[in-house]
């Protein structure tokens, strides 16, 4: 029955459908693939396993915070306080670890940092849902407050880390860097959370339409709180990771200085196809977005490309990718 002439339209149909449903992931992985091929063919230094792991290792800091940012964007918000949260966790951790270095103390410090982050996330959510401040402004304001606390505590880089704490960033399990495994496990958990738990599904539903979610019996305020708490939690992990990598704290480590983790994480999330405004997207795309940023930096460095040219190329890729995503036909205009 199935002749060749019948198979071709079916293939096209299949492709059309895939494109309709998942053009974001297709696009980002296609860009990743092309860049990877360019590197493999054109740059001998790129091919070494050591360099490839380096690409992954470079992706960890941005990757961790971007997983959290995915939740904030997916629920219909944005979290611009992650940069200063990273700095806060960074300076407090190194400040405390400079004095207390026992295993028990380190565990306690980590636990305390996570609690602080969860409180920050909750405050963000309360300002958004109870005081009805738009997420953009709410998290920017909370971020400014946090940054103030950071600079009250530490004006310049300093502090120290406990012996062994550098394992977080530098440790190896066989040939694989520990932080890479840590990141991948976390992506796995986040993926599982969004797909398999009711709370995760409700995050996307609330972002899709707060009203519809509420009318469906979902407690949208609570869901928003989960999303922002996860975002702050992920920022705390990035902060902890950075202390491990740098061996010290810096009041500007999360932003303002070199890496703007707040804006960079939003960029990675959007590159990964999560819709600004919420409702659609996920962490697999975000991981691809993070890898894209990391891969680009690596290629630029190896090819010794002028940093200003780097800016231009990055800008073109971001605008181009998001334009492809925007070509999706809008759902029946009302």
């Amino acid at each position, binding site marked *: 029955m199935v002749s060749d002439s019948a198979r071709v339209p079916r293939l096209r149909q299949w492709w059309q459908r895939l494109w309709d*449903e998942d053009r974001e992931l297709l696009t980002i992985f296609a860009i990743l693939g092309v860049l990877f091929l360019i590197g493999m063919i054109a740059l001998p230094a790129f091919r070494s396993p050591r360099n490839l792991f380096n690409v992954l290792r470079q992706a960890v800091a941005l990757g961790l915070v971007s997983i959290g940012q995915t939740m904030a964007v997916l629920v219909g918000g944005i979290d611009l306080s992650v940069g200063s949260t990273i700095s806060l966790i960074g300076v407090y951790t190194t400040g405390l670890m400079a004095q207390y270095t026992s295993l028990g103390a380190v565990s306690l410090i980590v636990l305390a940092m996570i609690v602080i982050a969860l409180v920050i996330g909750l405050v963000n959510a309360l300002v958004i849902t109870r005081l009805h401040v738009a997420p953009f402004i709410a998290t920017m304001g909370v971020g400014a407050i946090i940054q103030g606390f950071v600079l009250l505590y530490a004006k310049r880089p300093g502090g120290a880390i406990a012996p062994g704490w550098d394992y977080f960033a530098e440790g190896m399990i066989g040939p694989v860097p520990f932080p890479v495994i840590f990141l991948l496990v976390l992506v796995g958990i986040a993926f599982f959370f969004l797909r*398999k*738990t*009711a709370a995760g*599904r*409700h995050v*996307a*539903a609330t972002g*899709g*339409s707060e*009203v*519809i*979610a*509420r*009318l*469906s*019996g*979902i*407690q949208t305020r609570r869901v928003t709180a989960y999303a922002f708490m996860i975002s702050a939690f992920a920022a705390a992990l990035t902060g902890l990771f950075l202390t491990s990598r740098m061996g010290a704290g810096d009041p500007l480590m999360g932003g303002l200085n070199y890496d703007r983790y707040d804006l960079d994480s939003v960029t990675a999330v959007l590159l990964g196809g999560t819709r600004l405004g919420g*409702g*659609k997207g996920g962490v697999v795309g975000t991981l691809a977005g993070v890898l894209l940023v990391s891969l680009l930096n690596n290629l630029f460095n190896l090819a010794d490309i002028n940093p200003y040219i780097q800016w231009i190329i990055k800008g073109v890729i971001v605008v181009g990718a998001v334009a492809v995503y925007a070509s999706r036909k809008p*759902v*029946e205009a009302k």
Partner: protein
Amino acid sequence: MTQSLVEMRGITMRFPGVTALDGVDFESRAGEVHAVVGENGAGKSTLMKILAGVYQPDRGEILLRGQPVRISSPHEAQLLGISIIYQELNLLPDLTVAENVFLGREPRGKFGLIDSRALELGAREVLHRLEVDIDPRVRLGRLSVSQQQMVEIAKALSLNARIVIMDEPSAALGGRDLDKLFEVIAALKKNNVAVIYISHRLAEVFQVADRVTVFKDGKVIGTHVVSEIDRPSLVRMMIGRTLSETFPPRGKQIGQEVLRVEGLCCGEKLTGASLSVHQGEIVGIAGLVGSGRTELAQAIFGARHIDAGEVRIKGKKVSLGSPRDGLRHKLGFLTEDRNLEGLVMGLSVRENAALPSLDRRQRFGFVDSRAEGRVVAEMAEGLRVRTPSLSQEVENLSGGTRQKVVLAKWLISGPEVLIFDEPTRGIDVGSKAEIWQLMRDLANQGKAILMISSELPEIVGISDQIVVMHRGCVVGEMPGETATEEKVMMLATYGESHGE
């Protein structure tokens, strides 16, 4: 006599500027289909949203099986066994059918995780009950509107609620799907579920309902056993004029034809509309919500893509690709939702009024604000816009005044045809009369006016010619002088005249 399952007593609900419900009593019994009818804005949907926990009434109480309850959220309503099919679709296009059906109540398996199999099977089961062939794994956005409507119904059924409210479930359904809906209603009835059925289509009321309650202006006019009442008396109850409204005298000098529409089609909502409007004439477009009235107006103005048919202005065929084209051909469009589409809330009266004509009021690329101020001031005075000053932000003005600002905005751009979509919705009675007088004055000045309205007295009271729409088509036309609300209502609800 059966006991009432749910009883609402003395429910009063006020929104800013309107009393949506005024001391309403309503009850619904197990195993009974209770139809609720009334004109748009009569308060039916508001009452149902109170029952579903969306709104909290200002006054009144709700008894469930004789016990007073407080339904403070949609979540709580679900727990009490109340489910509702909303008038607007409440589904998320990016989720699958099954995920939509169980949104907020996902079946949990081990460790509180979603049980995908149970989710899919459950959805399959309800869809099967509805006898519709929809794959529960498909993303909702891929379905047609009527399929989505069936999913919405499936969602409500999956709750296995004791009280099922259906707010115009049939609006997007045709033929076979409608029959299935009625079968489902019959099955619910047999299972002793209380069904509350809101519809505009009276034929459906006689087909499925046991009792019918008529709403009018936020009050209950009466409740009757369906077998003891006939259509004309039901229509009379729905219309039953309560306010004596004063309409300006009709126009006398009808001039040449300005606007002519032939067989206009766009999408599913508008499938064939023709009409003509002359100078000095007010043509009223009547029809139920969803009959294609607004789509027609938008298409004429260029705000909607036209699939077939043509628009002629003064005999010349014009192509309208965007509202800008509409403006160029001297059309003005006063939208239904003044707050969202007609005015920019943060801007002042002057800035709003001058918006569509900014192009013509520029000098060297800058807005000539002196000229702007002068023109707007003249217009505001002519229309008697009550505002402390022209730099007042429109946010702080009343509905009637806002409507005048919208009118000023369009008049400044010098249109020959004005399209009004629900010109007096949400406006107090006094201002209504003023708006009507303004419309008549404009017609007498030679403008051609097209008016969409859900309010029958308004349609009959002010139109020189009435066009009635039903399901995307123009189904009838009559001169305003001899029209009655009954005639218009009959056409709008049945699509054809009944000789009763």
